[in-house]
């Protein structure tokens, strides 16, 4: 070296297989059996329809604030579809459909969105963590879990989700660095949906891609068309295989789009143009995949209608179950559970105080 270009050994790539116009790169297409193809489609559609129903419930005041997934179905379903049951999934807060794939019931999501802590009790089952609201904070937990897998010599992997906004948090950096240093079996899925509430991707960071941030950690990075379910499956498989084989973590940037509001408390008209939303509608992951499946002869109008009505019914059944369950929920006394395994004396005193208070309120209205 007097003055030379520094050779960075870490590769950053881009991947797209089924493009927005429907053309397919046969060579790159991952092998997926027909049942799984249909299952992928069903969950993506479920994500979309569940969103619509929740929006509806929210507008009626029957549930509280929630973050829709619409537009991001492929970037969520693709990655989780390659996990084994024993693997772990560490979500952020916008992964309803990934959580459902991993076994979380629709009613538990509705119950959570209605302000009942009971909704999160299913999370934590089946090697999935619950929703994590503080942006970027959960990736480190995935690293700890991955470290544990290595320590216990298990051939498992842990997958964690986060947004483009989350990459600005210090915890993203620390998680990526720790994962690389310990070669922990972690797959980092950044859903770059172009927005962090009102902040566009271009104001979040000056780097040309999120994927290239992997270079800072000596980790492979790949930028994937996040609306292309085939590409998401292919990239995720590769990353999961690498992790499982002891070759360490990978950063996957899924380039996608948040087609709806940030949460139901948000008004995107204040900060983004309809044009932009429209241009992304043309890249919709669902229609693109439906087209592919039709070409393949796996889907036709009738089959689509069958899936639609099965989904509609299952959502309705979940809403009914949730509303039924919630009738017997909400006893305020329950709040005294689960701060510690054993309640300290002063919390017991406060519990008795609340019991008296509720009785008084009952008496005096």
């Amino acid at each position, binding site marked *: 070296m007097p003055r030379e270009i520094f050779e960075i050994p870490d590769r950053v790539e881009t991947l797209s297989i089924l493009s927005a116009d429907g053309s397919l790169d046969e060579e790159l297409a991952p092998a997926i059996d027909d049942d799984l193809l249909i299952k992928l489609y069903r969950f993506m559609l479920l994500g979309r329809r569940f969103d619509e129903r929740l929006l509806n419930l929210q507008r009626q005041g029957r549930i*509280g*604030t929630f973050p829709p997934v619409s537009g991001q179905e492929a970037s969520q379903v693709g990655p989780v579809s390659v996990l084994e049951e024993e693997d772990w999934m560490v979500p952020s*807060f916008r992964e309803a459909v990934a959580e459902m794939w991993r076994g979380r019931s629709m009613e538990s999501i509705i119950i*959570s969105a*209605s*302000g*009942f*802590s009971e909704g999160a009790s299913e999370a934590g089952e089946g090697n999935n963590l619950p929703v994590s*609201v*503080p*942006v*970027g904070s959960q990736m480190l937990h995935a690293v700890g879990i991955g470290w544990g897998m290595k320590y216990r010599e298990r051939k498992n992997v842990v997958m964690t989700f986060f947004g483009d*906004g*989350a990459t*600005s*948090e*210090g915890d993203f950096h620390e998680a990526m660095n720790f994962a690389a240093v310990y070669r922990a079996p972690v797959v980092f899925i950044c859903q770059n949906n172009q927005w*962090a*509430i*009102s*902040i566009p991707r271009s*104001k*979040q*960071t000056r780097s040309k891609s999120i994927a290239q941030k992997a270079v800072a950690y000596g980790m492979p990075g790949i930028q994937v068309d996040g609306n292309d379910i085939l590409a998401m499956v292919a990239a995720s498989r590769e990353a999961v295989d690498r992790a499982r084989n002891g070759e360490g973590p990978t950063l996957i940037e899924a380039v996608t789009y948040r087609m709806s509001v940030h949460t139901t*408390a*948000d008004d995107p008209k*204040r*900060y983004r143009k309809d044009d932009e939303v429209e241009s992304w509608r043309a890249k919709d992951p669902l229609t693109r995949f439906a087209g592919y499946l039709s070409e393949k002869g796996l889907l036709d109008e009738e089959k689509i209608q069958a899936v639609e009505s099965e989904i509609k019914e299952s959502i309705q059944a979940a809403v009914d179950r949730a509303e039924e369950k919630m009738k017997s*929920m*909400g006893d*305020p006394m*329950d*709040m*005294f559970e689960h*701060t510690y395994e054993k309640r300290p004396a*002063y*919390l017991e005193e*406060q519990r008795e105080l*609340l019991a008296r*208070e*509720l009785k*008084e*309120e009952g008496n*005096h209205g």
Partner: protein
Amino acid sequence: MAKLNMVQALNLALRQEMEKDDSVIVLGEDVGVDGGVFRVTDGLIDRFGEGRVVDTPLAESGIAGMSIGMAIYGLRPVAEIQFSGFAYHCFHQIESHAARLRLRTQGAVTVPMVLRAPYGGGVRALEHHSESREAYWAHMPGVKMVIPSGPRNARALMVSAIRDPDPVIFYEAKALYRAFREEVPDEEETLPIGESQIVREGTDLTMIAYGAMIRPVLEAADELEKKKGVQTEVIDLLTVSPLDDRLFTESVKKTGRAVIVHEAPRSFGPGAEIVSRLVEKSFYHLEAPIARVTGFDMVIPLFAREKAYIPSAGRIFRAAVQALETEP
């Protein structure tokens, strides 16, 4: 003079200070184009441009740390942390630098910045969006912890906070943002930081509170008068730290009885310091144990149960009755 809610009143304070002093800079997540998720900074970017109303990347330590640098450079940053539950991400920047640079440099470097954050429950929000942990900041020497209780004092305190030579943590009760309107004068108005106020006079009992709790406290005080003929003196701290113990210790010398109210968890909470000051300065006048009506010692529950967590006028009333019925 216009009738403004607290969001509008804060917006007025920011706008006027920015007009008066080009060193005042507003920054934070979504404060620019979106006008803040609660709209406190609404319209400022149109008036002052994105050079002064700065949308930041999603990083609280970055926001706080950059603000410290701005303040060192002579600017007056007003940084927003979107919810107080995310202010812990920058706890180290505030503790290690904002609160200490004056001391570290013997006064040569100062950090006149404001860190704004919505706090408290009552708006059916998600987890981490309803916290009331002002005690963390109150225990931190070198910063000031201010919490207004309505539109008019919010505006006046915000102006004072911006002009304050020391770092100010400014918590805004979400439950008050649009709860009611007050006349807020167009002309400049300030309120001294570090001074409490008597907001209701009385002789029988002293209630001490701040922020969103002032409303249920006043309601309970009215009930006490109506139902029991009791005259309650109510003190609004306005500044939690540096704690002004003058008014409330004097008041309790007169009334002999005190009820302290806050939404924060009880143990090691703000009320404990108030109790201690009363014990240190009004001990011989106390006729009954001082009562604390507070949030319970747990994370505030999700919204289906939060009403039972947050002190209500009824709970305050009953604690007061108990304090009054206790014989000296």
